[in-house]
């Protein structure tokens, strides 16, 4: 924030070069953009639903997670309980999606129960809140997380 000051080491404090109006304009622009982002973005671009109903009383939504180049995108997805996530395989080979093991049941929180072929998808509806990590069983480095807000 103290940029470009070394040229000015010997400069004595003087009036700023830019008129006050310029900085006021910058601040107003920032305020407008912050307001626009809060209005349009909610929590970011990837939170925009793929398909949605009218939000008068929040309807369940469907989100899409795409698998491509060994990456699940969005890698972190925040949804609400009752929403459905569709995992779409756009990679070069089939992928098996498995949630981490539930410590109580000893079984994955969710599982595609077999490989998802290239171009196909697997959908899962998250009924309860929680943090659900998952990975590709073929390569556990390829992973993602679904954060589900409780109703």
């Amino acid at each position, binding site marked *: *924030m*103290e*940029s*470009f*000051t*070394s*040229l*000015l*080491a010997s*400069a004595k*404090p*003087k009036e*700023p*070069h*830019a008129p006050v109006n310029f*900085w006021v304009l*910058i*601040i107003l*622009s*920032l*305020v407008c*953009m*912050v307001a*626009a*982002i*809060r209005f*349009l*973005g*909610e*929590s*970011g*671009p*990837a*939170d*925009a639903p793929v398909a949605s109903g009218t939000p008068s009383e929040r309807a369940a939504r469907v989100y899409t997670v795409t698998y491509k180049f060994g*990456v699940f*995108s*969005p*890698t*972190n*997805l925040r949804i609400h309980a009752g929403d459905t996530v569709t995992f779409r395989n756009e990679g070069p080979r089939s992928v098996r999606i498995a949630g*981490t093991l539930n410590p109580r049941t000893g079984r994955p929180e969710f599982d595609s129960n077999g490989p998802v072929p290239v171009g196909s998808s697997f959908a899962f509806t998250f009924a309860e809140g929680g*943090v659900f*990590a*998952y*990975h590709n069983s073929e390569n556990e*480095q*390829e*992973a*993602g*997380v679904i*954060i589900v807000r409780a109703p």
Partner: protein
Amino acid sequence: MAQRTSLFITELFLYAATVAVGIWVAFRHLTLKLPTVIQPIEPTPENILIFGVVLIGFTVLIVRTARLGGWSLHVAMALAVLVGAQYVASGFLPPPWHTVFGAVLAVAPLLSRSQYARAWRFVSRFAPPLLLHNLAMVVAIAGVSALLGSSLTPNGAVIMLAALSVYDIIAVYRTRHMVAIAERMMISGAVFGFLVPVRFSHLFDTGEQAGDMDRVMILGSGDIGLPLVLASSVVSTSVPSAALIGAFSLAGLGLTHWLFMSQREAMPMAALPPVAMMSILGYLAAILIGL
């Protein structure tokens, strides 16, 4: 004119390198750390209040620290470099080597400053001090920004960026404490930011004149790192959005450079607001395009 162009190319080169490294590090850690989840901080009123208190406390601290003496700035800078470089290195090196990497980079800029004249003369015979300093800064700022960005939601990062832009204007033109801190950093030689020579080729100079503070401009760490915080906060949801924010922040750097060069005489200038404005505009564009 040629000198101004060369100056801008050098700035752009260092800035673009930092943005690229920062986005890569944020993405790399996202895939490495899963399924461990860091819950991002939401911009709630309580969090904004805490942020304000921390900001005021930080200002008081750095103003007082600047008065204490050069050594305290050196220690603060070395710690920041250590944290940032270690975070970057942990993306491709196993422990404890990432800590070793961070420690080496933390010491390198200190050696290249004139206060450590004997060590500096030794280093400058073999390695260009300006390049050494700036490479350490690229890694350190990218690491710290990626670390901070991954713990914030995009909305939180936008509010932080806007608030710090207003703070920058006040700190440069009203209270002038930012100018005082910059001058103190130059005197002590502990500059946490880029040292941009007027010509790109001067980056590779060796010898005793290479790190001469009269021949360089400073681009502060906040101006470089804060837009990268916004880009890093978006990486977990959309890498193309992060890249677009990075590209817009580069345009913001161009706008800042033009504003600075259009001054009738060289004066301290708040560089963050134009860069922040363009970065936020980039994020807005990403939302509208649907990246």
